[in-house]
């Protein structure tokens, strides 16, 4: 905490300096723009070009754009909200949107949304993640959903004609594909939101949900993970420490034959010159075909430049500006006009992901979702690590989750 407070003081000084320089620029509005794609050079370039175009037609506006590493932006937003130094436009991970809105980080733009066709233009799941307590706190940017990646060469070698479509097939295929130091299947079970992100589609596929956690479906989902890791040993125990990035590394090193991951890994396959044949299939299902909605939203910071920021954002959201930005991002569109764009519908891989986005559920569980998520990963980690039975873990998590739901 002490470290953060000295940062706060530092930031206050920074504001003073910033305030002075803005005053000197005479009437010019400076908008701060934060995103967390610092490792995506292509995105940075496209965004920078768009900003230049906008500044040319709006000489009174200057946009300062700062990229952060993924893990840093959340802290940055919270610090910014606390010290009133939040940027005017922020790209935020959609499951955090409600919690951050509840912390007073973002401006309420309900009035501005009213004059647009956004509510009907955007996919329901994506749009609902920008709403907190009936008020609008942003507009969706991109969506993604996870799916099953498979190593075609390894599947063929094991005599498996097509990727699994049900849990039963997933289980038997994973078993067949496990040999030597190679596992059949890998997925992230780390004790962070990434682990919960991987687990929730298993939960939903049984017909259960976080609101009914502790029911037969939730026990079944937990038991399924237990079977894969401890009985079949077709998933490595190290999965409790794996992030999505670690899972991807295992997959391209051919240490596992199938993985659950998202479309944000697609550019990496090219970068890492993956030589084996691979493909993407929809989530194998228990009862329901379902995936999980990921992606980012735009939010307007709680600053005095809300009007100017909204003007720029509306400009950025025009299809001709948005499309190159989404393409550079590597994720998928989540609005009716761009989702029909042949750029995405003709590619066999992105087509699968687009279909998954359509059946993907959002994590809209209120402002205390970060704490709920912790209960979820505690439950599956206890089961996978043999600390608790699936029934015990489900019961304990259910009791802890109930008071945290809105």
């Amino acid at each position, binding site marked *: 905490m002490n470290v953060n407070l000295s940062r706060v003081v530092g930031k206050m000084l920074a504001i003073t300096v910033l305030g002075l320089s803005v005053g000197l620029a005479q009437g010019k509005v400076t908008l701060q723009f934060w995103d967390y794609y610092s490792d995506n050079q292509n995105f940075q370039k496209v965004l920078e070009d768009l900003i230049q175009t906008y500044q040319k037609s709006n000489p009174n506006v200057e946009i300062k754009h700062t990229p952060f590493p993924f893990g840093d932006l959340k802290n940055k937003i919270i610090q910014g909200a606390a010290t009133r130094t939040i940027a005017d436009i922020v790209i935020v991970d959609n499951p955090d949107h409600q919690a951050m809105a509840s*912390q007073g980080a973002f401006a309420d733009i309900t009035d501005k949304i009213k004059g647009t066709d956004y509510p009907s233009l955007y996919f329901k799941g994506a749009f609902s993640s920008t709403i907190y307590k009936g008020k609008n706190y942003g507009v969706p940017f991109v969506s993604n959903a996870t799916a099953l990646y498979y190593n075609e060469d390894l599947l063929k070698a094991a005599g498996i004609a097509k990727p699994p479509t049900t849990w039963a097939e997933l289980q038997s295929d994973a078993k067949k594909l496990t040999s030597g130091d190679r596992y059949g299947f890998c997925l992230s079970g780390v004790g962070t939101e990434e682990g919960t992100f991987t687990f929730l589609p298993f939960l939903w596929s049984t017909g259960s949900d976080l609101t009914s956690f502790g029911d037969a479906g939730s026990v079944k989902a937990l038991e399924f993970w237990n079977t894969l890791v401890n009985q079949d040993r077709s998933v490595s125990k190290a999965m409790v420490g794996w992030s999505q990035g670690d899972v991807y590394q295992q997959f391209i090193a051919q240490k596992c034959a199938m993985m659950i991951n998202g479309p944000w890994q697609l550019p990496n396959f090219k970068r890492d010159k993956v030589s084996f044949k691979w493909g993407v299939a929809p989530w194998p299902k228990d009862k329901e075909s379902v995936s999980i909605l990921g992606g980012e939203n735009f939010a307007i910071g709680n600053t005095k430049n809300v009007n100017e920021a909204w003007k720029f954002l509306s400009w950025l959201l025009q299809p001709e500006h948005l499309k190159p930005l989404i393409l550079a991002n590597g994720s998928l569109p989540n609005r009716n006009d761009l989702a029909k764009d042949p750029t995405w519908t003709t590619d066999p891989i992105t087509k699968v992901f687009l279909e998954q986005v359509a059946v993907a559920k959002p994590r809209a569980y209120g402002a205390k979702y970060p704490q709920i998520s912790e209960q979820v990963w505690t439950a599956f980690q206890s089961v996978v690590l043999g600390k608790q039975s699936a029934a015990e873990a489900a019961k304990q998590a259910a009791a802890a989750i109930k008071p945290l739901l809105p």
Partner: protein
Amino acid sequence: MVDKTSDVRAIDKKREPRKRIAHLDYLFVAPAALFLLLFMVYPVLFNISLSLRDVTAATLLDTSQNTFVGLSNYAKVFQNPAFATTVINTLVFTFFSLVFQLGLGMALAIFYTRSFPGARYMRGLYLVAWTIPIVVSGSVFRWLLEGDAGVINYLLRTLGLIHQSIFWISNPNTALVSVIFVNIWLGLPFNLTLLIAALQGLPQEVYEAASIDGASGWQKYRFVTLPMLRPALLSIVVLGLIYTFKVFDLVFIVTGGGPLNASDVVSTLAYKMVFRDFLFGQGAAILNLLFVVLFVLSLFYIRTTQREEV
């Protein structure tokens, strides 16, 4: 009469410059005092007030906007089962780290105070490990300790010591042990250097006298080295306690506190409360409790070093 006034004047003249010098002294101290007030005292007071309030990010700096909740943040912390786990973990972490850092450090220090070819260079090499940023060495150890492909498992398997992979950092039974192991590796060079300096400062005459009296190597260590080293050892121990008790970066990088809080320490729990769950009040409460412990240790350190100087 005349004499008297001149006397008074003389005294005044004598006093005035002294007073001015006294004021000047304060002026010289002022920057340091101001720095301490701004960056040490204010954050501590702020953190105490934070722990007594119900705070969101938007109301963090505006005390008028959030409600005073008394000690309820502290009550919630004590009811949280994760807190007890982290306290125990922190104590275990600190105890074993210090015992091994000091034990091995002492053995190596005695070894390296003897003169043999290359002793100086080898001593210097130990410090290289200490200068590597923790982010780097922590990440490297994360890979070394990995269950399926880690080098440590490979070594143990090749030597025939284990037959099944041990998932060092993803098994709750070994995660804390692994972090302690890395911390011993990290802290050893520093302890070694301090101990060597202390050993070299000991007067040689006492050893010569002991040799003449026919003391054995162990007796020299037990009855000469240890008693003379006591003051230095005490401050090394207390410094190590303070440094180890507030560990954050190493745990955060190697295991992230997981799995299942198995390697969470007090500071990583507080970090998660604040930056993941937005529970500012409870996070502040935990850090205040940690602060009290560290403060008492610091006072103890100051007392021991002062006694040493006397």
